[in-house]
């Protein structure tokens, strides 16, 4: 009788045994896939939440008075706008999300405002990232909460800003900071309004400690690239980012091997028990003249069937768990929790291989004994 037919007959005879084996593999794969999918989501969420804390690096002209800078929150000196692009293309710098800004205090309609020009983010070559800050279209402005409320300006209104016409694209929500008196515009628009074409007074950036070491090293590199600038860092944000990221990575590095080991041990024990239960069958087949290879293929074949079906079922279940419950936990990146089909391939290869391996040892032990030993042990 063909080996596959024998496997199918045994499976249909011991349906419950087969289903329990299948369930064990599926549960192990589901656990693995869901933990891994959720783990990736957790890393992504932590990264996103940390990024949302804002820029942690501020590059300002070297001649800027630091006391004034901290008092007013912007530098009193300017530097060429071209510096931002130069920094973006500088190799070996662990900075991302570069934004050139020009900020000046001004009086407008008898109110004090912070006129802030923002350039679109400059993406360093080879580091494509989703933008971290908003981009303002030319000819439009965003108004801080106090400015809009105090002057009764609404979204869509046309305003005159120092002789130039702009459309109010957005009135921002209250922030409880200086941002409430800002008027944001495109960098070139603001440069035009202020008559400071090609000038900026700050480059904001995100420095990732994990990518390129400590701030000291970065300062040395920046000074070499832009000699007439100085760098300040929001240490609390930088440290929180680094520590949170490291914590999540360490947690995953700790939990994943445990999950893998538990799943592997679970599947291995079940596979070994299945073969032990069928030792008498091995004895019968050997007594009837069947060779070791034929008997091994019978048991390993079943292991592969259980492994493949269990892996497929486990992937569906594990992905279902992650996709259904993940968004409730990871709200910021919920849209990014999608099936990771790469795991399906891995599951379909690794699970059958592992079940087969776990079945292989007891099978080989049984087929290498005298048939009578296997039969009389029952």
């Amino acid at each position, binding site marked *: *009788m063909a080996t596959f037919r*024998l496997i199918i*007959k*045994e499976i*249909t*005879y*011991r349906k419950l045994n087969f289903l329990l084996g299948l369930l064990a593999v599926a549960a192990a794969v589901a656990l693995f896939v869901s933990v891994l999918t959720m783990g990736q989501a957790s890393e992504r969420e932590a990264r996103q939440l940390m990024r949302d804390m804002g820029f942690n690096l501020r590059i300002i002209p070297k001649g800027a008075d630091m006391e004034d800078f901290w008092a007013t929150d912007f530098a009193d000196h300017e530097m060429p706008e071209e510096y931002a692009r130069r920094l973006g293309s500088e190799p070996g710098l662990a900075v991302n999300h570069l934004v050139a800004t020009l900020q000046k205090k001004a009086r407008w309609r008898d109110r004090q405002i912070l006129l802030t020009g923002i350039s679109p983010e400059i993406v360093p070559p080879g580091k494509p990232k989703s933008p971290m800050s908003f981009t303002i279209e030319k000819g439009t402005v965003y108004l801080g909460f106090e400015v809009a409320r105090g002057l009764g300006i609404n979204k869509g209104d046309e305003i005159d800003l120092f002789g130039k016409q702009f459309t109010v694209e957005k009135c921002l929500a209250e922030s409880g900071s200086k941002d409430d008196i800002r008027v944001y515009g495109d960098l070139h628009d603001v440069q035009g309004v202020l008559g400071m074409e090609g000038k900026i007074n700050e480059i904001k950036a995100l420095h990732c400690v994990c990518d390129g070491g400590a701030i000291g090293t970065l300062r040395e590199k920046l000074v070499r690239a832009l000699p007439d600038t100085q760098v300040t860092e929001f240490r609390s944000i930088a440290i929180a980012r680094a520590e949170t990221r490291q914590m999540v990575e360490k947690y995953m590095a700790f939990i994943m091997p445990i999950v893998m080991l538990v799943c592997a041990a679970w599947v291995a024990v079940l596979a070994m028990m299945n073969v032990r239960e069928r030792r*008498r*069958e091995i*004895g*019968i*087949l*050997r*007594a*009837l*003249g*069947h*060779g*070791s290879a034929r008997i091994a293929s019978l048991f390993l074949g079943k292991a592969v069937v259980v492994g493949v079906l269990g892996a497929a079922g486990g992937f569906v279940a594990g992905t279902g768990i992650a996709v259904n419950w993940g968004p409730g936990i990871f709200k910021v990146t919920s849209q990014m929790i999608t099936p990771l089909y790469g795991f399906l391939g891995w599951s379909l290869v690794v699970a059958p291989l592992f079940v087969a391996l776990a079945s292989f040892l007891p099978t080989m032990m049984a087929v*290498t004994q*005298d*048939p*009578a*030993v296997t*039969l*009389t042990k029952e």
Partner: protein
Amino acid sequence: MNAIEFENITKIYAGPGGEVRALDDLTFSVEHGEFVVVHGPSGSGKSNLLLTAGCMIHPTEGRVLIHGTDVYAMTERERAGFRAENIGFVFQMFHLVPYLNIIDNVLLAVGTESKRARRTKALEFLKRFSLSDRSLHRPSELSTGERQRTAVARALLNEPTILLADEPTGNLDPDNSATVMGYLSEFHSNGGTVVVVTHERSAAEHADRVVNLERGRIESGA
């Protein structure tokens, strides 16, 4: 040349209380076409003797020659082929595969003939053993007598020259016992060599020779 020759066979098992000599320097032979019944109390080594003759258990010492061939000098693969070709084995516990129906159980014995020829022969055996209407049943759906008849049919499918039976009637009622012993006698009368290990004294009626075993040694009938 004898059908079976045991030359100084010793089988030792390691037990919790020390070594157990299941077979102790045993030498005897079975001629071609002979019907031998082996008697002996439990633990006398009867089953070990039979399993050793059936190429299913390595002796610790000595040689077993089947038709002049030293079977334990062969590789496992060669021995499996030799066993399938020359020896039929009937167990007390039937040892049928529970998930296969009766016809598939009979066909499970490894053979060299074509599939169709083997199937035709298997159906003939089932008819002869009054199992035709049970061919698609599983062993669990059969009576003990029917199961043992299936086991005998499986043992005979490859037309072996030697038939070894370990307590073949141990689980059967008198009628079924007589039927099974009748099949063994029929095989013997057609020229086959039969060795039966049994407690039942009545089996001696079919035998050419009765061998008595005690503590792994032959007491009489060698």
